[in-house]
């Protein structure tokens, strides 16, 4: 697989290292001279100097034959443009983009740059997972595939409390995949009986949150 990484900061360099270890071919494009010098001393010819939002720079980096473009600069507008140019100008099938400011997520969605990764959102999800403030936590979104993975706390006296999974009528497009009890996770089976205090992990099509809350989190 050939991956072109645009943005050679901590994220770009580490993704590059990991892909190289897995045996893939990689180029890392970096526009800042000082950062490029550091990259070049480690990655040699794999590091390429230039503004990765310029079409000729991406062309020289071989974007036309890339299997995946990874847009991970520190500027969201740059990552959006890189994603659009890679996909629509160079025909790259897989684009992964970094969202620096979570408020810009909606722009990535609007302009069709997906999937995206946002460190702030991931950290917030982890905090929610560790110290739940709400009974429903989004763990992971597969936006393009239209699927959400979320965690829901089972509330005492809810319909789920004391019910076996097989007897629970789930909303359409949702599935309980595992149950966390006392910090131990088990893959859900039809005879798993839920109890208040359990956390269930559900995979669902978007928009089912309130129906799920009704089953697991309403008394």
């Amino acid at each position, binding site marked *: 697989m050939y991956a072109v990484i645009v943005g050679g900061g901590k994220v770009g360099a580490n993704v590059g290292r990991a892909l190289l270890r897995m045996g893939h071919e990689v180029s890392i494009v970096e526009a800042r001279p000082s950062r490029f010098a550091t990259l070049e001393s480690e990655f040699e010819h794999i590091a390429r100097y230039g503004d990765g939002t310029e079409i000729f720079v991406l062309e020289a980096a071989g974007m036309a034959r890339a299997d995946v473009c990874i847009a991970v600069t520190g500027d969201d*507008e740059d990552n959006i443009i890189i994603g659009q140019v890679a996909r629509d100008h160079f025909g790259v099938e897989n684009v992964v983009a970094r969202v620096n400011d979570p408020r810009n997520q909606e722009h990535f969605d609007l302009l069709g740059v997906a999937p995206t990764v946002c460190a702030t959102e991931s950290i917030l999800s982890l905090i929610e997972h560790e110290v739940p403030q709400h009974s429903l936590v989004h763990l992971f979104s597969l936006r393009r595939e239209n699927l959400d993975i979320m965690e829901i706390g089972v509330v005492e006296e809810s319909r789920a409390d004391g019910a076996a999974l097989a007897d629970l009528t789930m909303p359409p497009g949702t599935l309980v995949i595992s149950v966390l009890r006392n910090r131990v996770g088990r893959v859900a089976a039809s005879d798993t009986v839920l109890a208040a205090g359990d956390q269930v992990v559900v995979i669902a099509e978007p928009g089912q949150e309130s129906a799920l809350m009704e089953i697991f989190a309403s008394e």
Partner: protein
Amino acid sequence: MFVVVVGCGRVGAQVARGLVGDGHDVNVIDQNAEALQRLGGDFPGEFIQGVALETTVLEAAGIERADAFVAATNGDNTNLVIAQIARDRYQVQCVIVRVLDPARARFYEERGLVTVCPTRTAIDRMSEALRAFATADGEDA
């Protein structure tokens, strides 16, 4: 008509003033408060200080009722992103975007944006002037 202009530098400010002179309503966005000075003390429209990537800033400038939108910051990618937001999210009918890089200008022109590329204009005008000189020079000799 009502126009929102983003970027109050040499280009944006003069476009905004010109539109006002023609009798149009214009609001201007720039992230730098000092850019307001370029509009002159008698500018009748609103000046909004803020980052145009933020929808709250665009909405404060009235993008939802704008007939036209001009993206003229000094960042090509910022201009291209906010122009697409204006067109695709707010359905602004006329969106004009300044892009310095001719290659990106052409690519987004093909994707339906009205791009203005000062670099392309400079290349064309300079080449034209030189060709005119070469032709005249050739005739003299």
